[in-house]
């Protein structure tokens, strides 16, 4: 009965952050919107720092509904991919060095996405978290909540359905 030796914290962090970094930074549109992800254990928080190009109503001003949609969809897709990837990273099924050089796993494909705009997006940073409500072999359902200054005061939420990529080994 030999237990697996516990790895140094830096090794674990480097592996997890490296995998997340390649997942997020490999997608041009995610970079275009300037979205970053903050990781605490397996929990991700997406951050979309305010930028003028995200404005949809210059009079108010308010964030564009399309930018908000892109932000929430990105949060959902990355969150879903991460939840699958997490198991593989931890079990050693995924080569993190391959990930680091940009050989990303196939991302889930959006089937549909339904966004509720609860209040207008203010011209400041936005945050979002995704919850995978169901993750099957082929289909997954994800709910996303987005807020700005106050965590309890959502400015948008969304539910989406996704087609999972076929496993690499058949």
């Amino acid at each position, binding site marked *: 009965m030999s237990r697996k030796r516990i790895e140094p914290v830096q090794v674990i962090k480097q592996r997890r952050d490296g995998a997340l970094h390649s997942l997020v930074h490999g997608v041009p549109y995610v970079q275009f919107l300037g979205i970053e992800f903050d990781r605490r254990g397996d929990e991700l928080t997406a951050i979309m720092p305010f930028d003028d190009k995200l404005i949809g109503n*210059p009079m108010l001003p308010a964030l564009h509904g399309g930018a908000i949609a892109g932000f929430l969809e990105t949060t959902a897709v990355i969150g879903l991919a991460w939840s699958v990837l997490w198991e593989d990273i931890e079990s050693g099924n995924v080569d993190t060095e391959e990930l680091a050089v940009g050989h990303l796993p196939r991302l889930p494909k959006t089937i*549909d996405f339904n966004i509720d705009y609860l209040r207008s997006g203010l011209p400041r940073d936005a945050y979002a978290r995704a919850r995978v409500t169901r993750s099957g072999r082929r289909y997954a359902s994800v709910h996303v909540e987005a807020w700005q200054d106050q965590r309890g005061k959502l400015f948008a939420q969304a539910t989406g359905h996704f087609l999972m990529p076929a496993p690499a080994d058949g």
Partner: protein
Amino acid sequence: MTPGKVKMAEQFISAIPHCKALNMKLTEIGDGFAVMELPYDLRIVGDPETGVLHGGAVSALMDTCCGAAAMSHPASPATTATIDLRIDYMRAATPGQTIRTRAECYHITRSVAFVRATALDDDSERPVATAAGAFTVGGIK
């Protein structure tokens, strides 16, 4: 809709920073409908391996086009905002091709505009995506 009003709508759209950043263009607008284009751009690719555009960029196009259709309705809301929007992604847009979307405001009340839209690329037989949404009606004349 008069040519002057079309010109105004074009200017209105191109003054929106997010639309400008995506190079969106309004090509047609009439009573309760609008047509807009999103040119292919490497900056908004969602899948670097295939070069397919990200769904979020298509959402932004459809959201803007739906809003324009709501505002162009003869009941003429002065302002509008999206209440909700549902997008169905039928297939990946072909890399390199412009996405074209037509939105129609098919019903409007004093408070809500109901809008739907279809997005196409060069293959006009098979939609890339469809959208349906509800928009607020503000400052009605």
